[in-house]
C-alpha cells in the first residue's frame, strides 16, 4: 500500500492504494466520486475522462499513484459554484446531448478540454476530438451540436430538434 494525496475538485484528499489501483477506481471506490464511469477495460470508451493538471486523461489508463500530488478535476466539479450547470453542461441539456447518461461525464470533460484548446471548433474538429469517447445512445448528432453551441456558434441550421 502506498499513501497518496492529491487535490480533487479543489479539495485535498488522501488515501492508501495498491500499486495496481487505477485512478478511476481510486476516484470511484475510495473517494466515492461515482460520476467518473468505467465502460471498458482497454482504454477505448472515454467514459472515465477527467482532467489531471488541466489535461484530459482517461482515468483508467493511469495508476492512482501516478496522480500523487496532482490537481484532478472530475464531472462532480464541473458545475458553477452556485450549483447551476456550466455552459457546456447546459448546452448538453438544451440540445439533448445525452440519453442514458453513462458516457456523459466523459463527454463533458472531453468537451471542456477541447474548448479550452480550440474555442471555436468546426464540426470535423469536434468529431475528430471525440474519437476516444464512445456513445451508444445519441448517434453523436446532438453531442456534436451541443459542443458547437457551447462554443458560441449558431447551430440552428443543423437539422432536427
Amino acid at each position: 500500500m502506498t499513501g497518496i494525496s492529491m487535490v480533487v475538485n479543489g479539495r485535498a484528499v488522501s488515501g492508501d492504494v495498491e500499486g495496481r489501483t487505477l485512478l478511476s477506481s481510486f476516484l470511484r471506490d475510495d473517494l466515492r466520486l461515482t460520476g467518473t464511469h468505467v465502460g471498458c477495460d482497454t482504454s477505448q470508451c472515454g467514459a472515465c475522462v477527467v482532467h489531471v493538471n488541466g489535461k484530459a486523461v482517461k482515468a483508467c489508463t493511469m495508476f492512482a499513484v501516478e496522480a500523487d500530488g496532482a490537481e484532478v478535476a472530475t464531472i462532480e466539479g464541473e458545475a458553477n459554484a452556485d450549483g447551476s450547470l456550466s455552459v457546456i453542461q447546459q448546452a448538453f441539456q438544451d440540445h439533448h446531448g445525452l440519453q442514458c447518461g453513462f458516457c456523459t461525464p466523459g463527454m463533458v470533460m472531453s468537451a471542456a478540454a477541447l474548448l479550452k484548446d480550440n474555442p471555436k471548433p468546426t464540426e470535423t474538429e469536434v468529431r475528430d476530438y471525440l474519437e476516444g469517447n464512445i456513445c451508444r445512445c445519441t448517434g453523436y448528432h446532438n453531442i456534436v451540436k451541443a459542443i458547437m453551441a457551447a462554443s458560441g456558434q449558431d447551430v440552428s441550421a443543423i437539422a432536427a430538434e
Partner: protein
Amino acid sequence: MPKDSGIGASSKRREDLRFLTGAGKYTDDINIHGQTYVHFLRADVAHATINSIDTTAAAAMPGVVQVFTGADFEAVGGIPCGWQVTDRFGEPMQEPRHPVIAHGTIRHVGEIVAAVVGETLAQARDAAEAIVLDLTEKPAVVDMKAAATEGSTKVHDDLASNICYDWGFVEENRDAVDQAIKDAAHVTTLELVNNRLVANPMEPRVAVGEYSRSDDMHTLHTTSQNPHVIRLLMGAFVLGIPEHKLRVVAPDVGGGFGTKIFHYAEEAFCTFAAKAVNRPVKWTSTRSEAFMSDAHGRDHVTKIELAMDADNNFTAIRTETYANMGAYLSTFASSVPTWLHGTLMAGNYKTPLIYVNVKAMFTNTVPVDAYRGAGRPEATFQLERVIDKAARERGVDPIALRRQNFVTEFPYATPVAVEYDTGDYEATMAKLEEIADIDGFAARRAESEAKGKLRGLGVNCYIEACGIAPSNLVGQLGARAGLYDAATVRVNATGSISVMVGAHSHGQGHETSFPQVISEMIGIPEDQIDIVHGDTSKIPFGMGTYGSRSLAVCGSAMVRAAEKVINKAKKIAAHLLEASDADIELKDGQFSVAGTDKSVAWGDVTLAAYVPHNYPLEDIEPGLEETAFYDPANFTYPAGAYACEVEVDPDTGKVTIERFSAADDFGNVINPMIVSGQVHGGIAQGIGQALLENCAYDEDGQLISASYMDYAMPRADDLPFYTVDHSCQTPCTHNPLGVKGCGEAGAIGSPPSVVNAVIDALQSGGKNVTHIDMPVTPARVWEAMNNA
C-alpha cells in the same frame, strides 16, 4: 407555434441534471456496508467436458469468503426461456437446461465455470487463478449449416440434434407459395448474412445481491430494463423465492438496447450467494466479460426469393433462414427469428403469398437474443435488399417499384398474421424525397465523380410491430407471460402527483415525457408530476421497456389510471360545487360547472380528498390514487422511409456516409426532441451494423472480437449529421394516445439503405456488384469491386 409544455412540447429532460453533474445512481454506484465481491472464472474454450474442478487452493487464499461451482446450483432451476415456439410439425422446440454455473459440460467461451466470493475484487480475482480445471475438449459447433447436418457434433448430448426448431410460417401457404414462385414472370433471389452484433450499452451489467435473515428478504440491484420480469423469472423458475420475499431494483441504467431485458446467470448467482454467505455480493462486469456473457444479437443466414408478375407486382415471397440461438436459450431468443421476424415479412407491400422458414440452431457460442429491433431489422434488411436487386434486374426505379406495391388501404391484413391498423407509406416516401433532396442527387453525384469518388443513393422502407404486445395473441403464439403494463397515479394532498410506472427508462427520458401527458390531461405544470420506476417494491407491476412499448403500453396504462383519478376528482368537485358530476369540466387545473362561473382548483379538490371534512363519504372513499393495467388490442405499426448517400473511394473501398435522412410515422408524438434523439441513436446503430460492427468467432468457437480494439463501435467521426422528420402522423387507432413507438425504428430502417447505396455507387462505377454482406468494410468493397 411549438408548445412549451404538455403533449407535443420539446420539454428539456429533467433527468439530465443528475447525469450531467455526476449524480446519476447506476448499479455500480451502489455500495452496501459489508459487501463482498464475486469474480467469475469463465470458460476459455467453447466446448469441453469438465472432468473435475479443484477449488481447495483457491478457497484457502487470503480474503476468500466462499468458492462456488456448478454442483452448488444442482438443486436450483435453470435459467428459463420465456417463449415456447412450436415447430412446423406441431412439436415444441427443444429446450435444454441452462445452468447458472456450468455443470459437467462447457458450451461456450465465457460460460461461468466457478465463482469466487472475496473480501475485495482483487482477492477474488487472484484466488480464481488458483482453481484447477481438468477438461476434455470437444469439437466446437460454430457454423449453423454444418450444425444442421446429420452426424454433427451436438451442443447438447441429451437433445436429438442441434436444431432447436424448424418453423414454417404460414405453414398452410407453403405449397401455394412454391407454386406462385414457379408461375412467376420473374423471381429475384438473394442470399445474405445478417451479421452477429453485440449490443454494447456503455454501462456494463452489474448485479448486487443482498439478503436479510431477520425477515428472509432478498434484494437484487441489477442493470435491467424490466425488474418485474427478473423477479418473476428468477424468483419463480430459478431460485424459488416468492414475490413478497424478493425485491428487484433497477436504478439508473446506462443503456439497454435489448441486452438488459434478459435474466442472466450472474443475477441469480448474486441473489443466491448473498444468502449463502449472508453478506451482500457485488458483481461488476468488465467490458471483456460483457462481450462473452451479454446476449448477442442478429446472426441470421438467409435466402430470400421475391416473385413478380410481368408488370412487377409482387406475387410471392419465400425465405429460408438459419438463426443462431447460441449454446442456450436466452429469455426471448426463440421469439426473435419467428414471431418478431416472420410476421413482418410483408413489409410495406401487398404481397399476397408469403412463406417463411426458420431453422433455429444451437451452436457453441454466447446465447443470441433481442437487440434493438429484434427480428424486424432482419426482416427489413432482406426484403428491402431483394427489392433493390429486383429493381435493378427489371430495369425500373427502386422507389417506383416500392410505390407500385405499397399497401394503400387500412386496416390491412397481411398474409403473415398481423393487421396493420393505419399508415400512409406514400406520405413518408414523399416526405423522404423532400428532406433527402432526391432530385439533387444527380448533381451531387457529378460533384463526387469530379473528385474521383463514386456516389450512391440507397432508399428503403420499413415497418415494425411495436407496443408489445396483446397478451391473448402472444399467449397463443407461445409467450409464457402476459405483455400488458401497469401504472399507478398517486395524487398527493396538495395536488402534486407521483406516477409509478412499470416501464423502465434507461435513456428514453420517461421522467420527462410521461409527466407531459399527465400535465396535458389535468392542466397542472409538468414539474408537479414525478415518475417512479425501476423498483418492484415501489411500483405495482410492469413488464418493462423493450419493443418500443413504453408509451404505447405503459403510457396507455398511465392514461387510464389518470382518467380514473380525474373521474373521482370530478365527483369530489361536484360535491364541493354543489353540482352534478356530469356537469363538471376540468381545464387548466380548474374544475368548473359547465355554463356557470363556479369553479374550484385542482389543489382544493385533492386536499379535500385527503382532509375529507366536507366530502361525499357515503359515495366515495377518501384519497386520490388509482391503478390501471393496460393490455393492448393490437401491435402498433410505425413505418417510414430512409435514404442514405455514400461516397466510395474506388482506390481503397472506403465508404463514407455523406447524407442520411429518415422520414418516420410514429403516430402522435409527445416530445419531438426525445423522438428525434431516439431516431439518431438507432440510425447510428444501423450504420454501425452496415459498415463497422461484426461479432466474429473462429472455427474453434473462440470469440475473436472481444474488446473495443476488435469490435468496431461507431464513433463520432464515422457519422454525419442526420436529417430526421416525424411530421407524417397516422395515429394508432387502438391506444388512447395514438402513439406507435419510436425506439427501434432507426436501427431497423437504416442498414438496407446503406448497403443499397454502396451497391448503387459501385454500379455507377460500372462494377456489376449485386450484394456485399455487412459489415461493408473497405476490404469487402475492394474485393467485390476487383472481382466484379
